[in-house]
């Protein structure tokens, strides 16, 4: 099976190639330092190919500079700051594999084959499903997928931020979640995976509180939750909707477990405080507000999941619209 042959065209992959300053030149000293640091010669990459990979990656991301500053080429210092924030060795390997470098593929398989299979098994929690998932990804990475008459290699979307192994794991997870969603759309997601997208159906509530007060409470809850910052909403969603443990959340965010617990507790307190304040602002006494806070949750028609998902991230909305 032949690997993809020079399909790393930026126009094809969607990754801009050389969109920065057209006369941008890589700093020789920096290129030499990076070349010596990544040991790319051991798996067949030439110095010229390496520099071209760096230049393409740098210009595609404008060397990490703002869009407005792309009229002037990046200085050597800016280039150094940009490339030192990347995993250059992984980036060079990914690009070399996407260009069909046989020795690079051999190196990739030697290094990543077993970890990738283990990651797939861990994600699917099944030996068979895991190996299938890993093989499927290998096929994609090898460029078997063809679009518009050209083979596409997912490795081209790797830009060096984070490790290549982390990127591979994330791609595996994406494939698994997407496959799960496609195949099990009609049934609740498995509890074993901790995937619980839908709130359990609530029994028919028997309203004990006046409808007006409940309406006030629902509105206050919506406003209080929506006003939370993104990180706090992530804590709430991961902990209460996804059922993640504090340790899992802490590992994702790179903080201590106690930090997650403390901030989650503080978020809950602030939400409660804001709800009480909102109720009092609508003419309720403090005592009435406290009593209303003790209302049966089943009396409320508040879908926290829907509430959280309705407050979409503006950044990605903008990106999607663009």
């Amino acid at each position: 099976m032949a690997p993809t042959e020079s399909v790393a065209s930026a126009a094809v992959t969607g990754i801009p190639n050389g969109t920065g300053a057209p006369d941008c030149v890589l700093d020789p000293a920096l290129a030499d330092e990076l070349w010596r640091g990544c040991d790319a010669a051991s798996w067949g990459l030439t110095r010229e190919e390496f520099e071209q990979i760096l230049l393409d990656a740098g210009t595609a991301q404008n060397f990490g500079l703002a869009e407005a500053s792309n009229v002037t080429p990046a200085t050597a210092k800016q280039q150094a700051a940009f490339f030192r924030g990347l995993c250059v060795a992984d980036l060079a390997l990914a690009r070399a594999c996407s260009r069909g470098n046989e020795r690079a593929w051999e190196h990739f398989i030697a290094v990543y084959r077993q970890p990738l299979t283990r990651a797939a098994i861990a994600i699917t929690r099944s030996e068979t499903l895991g190996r299938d998932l890993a093989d499927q990804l290998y096929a994609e990475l090898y460029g078997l997928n063809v679009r518009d008459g050209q083979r596409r290699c997912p490795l081209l979307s790797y830009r060096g931020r984070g490790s290549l192994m982390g990127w591979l794991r994330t791609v595996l997870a994406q494939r698994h979640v997407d496959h799960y969603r496609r195949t099990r759309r009609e049934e609740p997601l498995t509890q074993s995976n901790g995937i619980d997208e839908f709130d359990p159906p609530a029994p028919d509530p028997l309203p004990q509180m006046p409808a007006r007060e409940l309406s006030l409470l629902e509105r206050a809850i919506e406003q209080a939750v929506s006003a939370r910052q993104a990180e706090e909403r992530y804590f709430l969603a991961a902990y209460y909707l996804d059922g993640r443990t504090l340790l899992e959340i802490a590992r994702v965010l790179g903080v201590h477990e106690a930090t997650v617990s403390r901030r989650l507790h503080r978020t809950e307190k602030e939400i409660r405080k804001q709800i009480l304040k909102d109720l009092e602002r609508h003419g309720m006494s403090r005592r009435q507000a406290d009593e209303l806070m003790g209302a049966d949750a089943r009396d409320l028609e508040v879908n926290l999941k829907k509430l959280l998902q309705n407050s979409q991230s503006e950044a990605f909305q903008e990106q999607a619209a663009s």
Partner: protein
Amino acid sequence: MSATSQHGFHPDAESLSAFSEQALQERERADVLAHLAVCARCRQVVALAREAADADAPAATAPTRKATEPNAWWKQWRLVWVPAAVAVAFAVTTISVYIEQADRHGSNIKVAEQHTTQGTVPSSTPAPTEQAEAVPPASPAPASPAHAAKHAQPAVAKPLPAPAPPVVTAQMSPEPGALAPEPMDQVEVTPEAPPLSHAEAQQAPPEVTAGAMRPAYSQPAAGAWEAKQKQVEQQRQAEVDTLRMRHFKAKAAPAVVPDANQSAPAGATESVTVTAAPPLETHPVALAEPALMLGIKSPGTATTPARPMLLPSGLAAVSIASGGHFLLAIDKAGALFLSEDRGVTWERIARQWTGRAVAVRQKARVHGASPAAPAAQNGTTGSSSADAGPAPSLTEFFELSNDENHTWVSTDGRTWTPK
């Protein structure tokens, strides 16, 4: 569609991966986090990738652990340092303790007998009279074997053929009916011979040693003396000097009656010989202690270092005298050094004498003594008050002798005047 998004609204795999690895910049991280807060799918992707990484981490480290198994912790070369460090620590501790003890011994200046008594114990003393010659006992610091052997001799009032220093002998022969607390009724001041050199002083047998005194006292008195001796051993030199002067002033001075019959030439070194009277035998402790204190605390003794003390000139000290916190020392070249901090720092005293200084001593003179002994000590001023006058007081001074037997005196160790 943005380059950073996949599937429409979701961040791409690299952004999620970089977010999980804390590799995103602050702004981009905030964007991804905001998306994760509302996107269950991406939260699942991140969580699954994180789980896979955590599951892969032990597998990745397992071979490493296996490879290190042959090198068990007890076989690692670093552990060699543990016993070595313990041994070094023990050695350092031992050496430091030894040095500290040596310094302590060195700081205790050994009070040595430079001179012997000259007619100390009167032969006319009645036989029943218990005679004790109290001299300052030797320092507890280990002396040279020869010196120690000489001190061990039960030499009681052994006269020297060589010129002996004058000895102030206080005979404990109270008058009949006198009370025990006033035991001294006689102080003999004998003229002092020319001072001996350090070597001669060492060769001279001690007049009376502590060991020689013990048989002269009853057992309780000896026990008291030993207790005092231990106390002196444990204290520093300054405390020794202070206690010595205090006891001397409190007990010895009021009881000292200078003997007018004895002439005291200038520069006489004092030693005190106490002769106990028969009544003392009935109150041995009460009587013995003042005599003992006189012997111990007598300031008129020459001192020699327990071991060679190097002075700032680089030469060893041949003669040392101490008084209070003052310390005077003469090196082999005849240079005089003064220390006001017990030997920590030294000051060289300008030469104010002729010849070569060979000895320095601490002396004391008695003021306000009985008129019966106007020239009480060393022939120094004997202008004393009457019996009913104020209690006698003691003034310390230093005396320096050169190689021509000339003497200079000083009260502060700095200014010297011919005697």
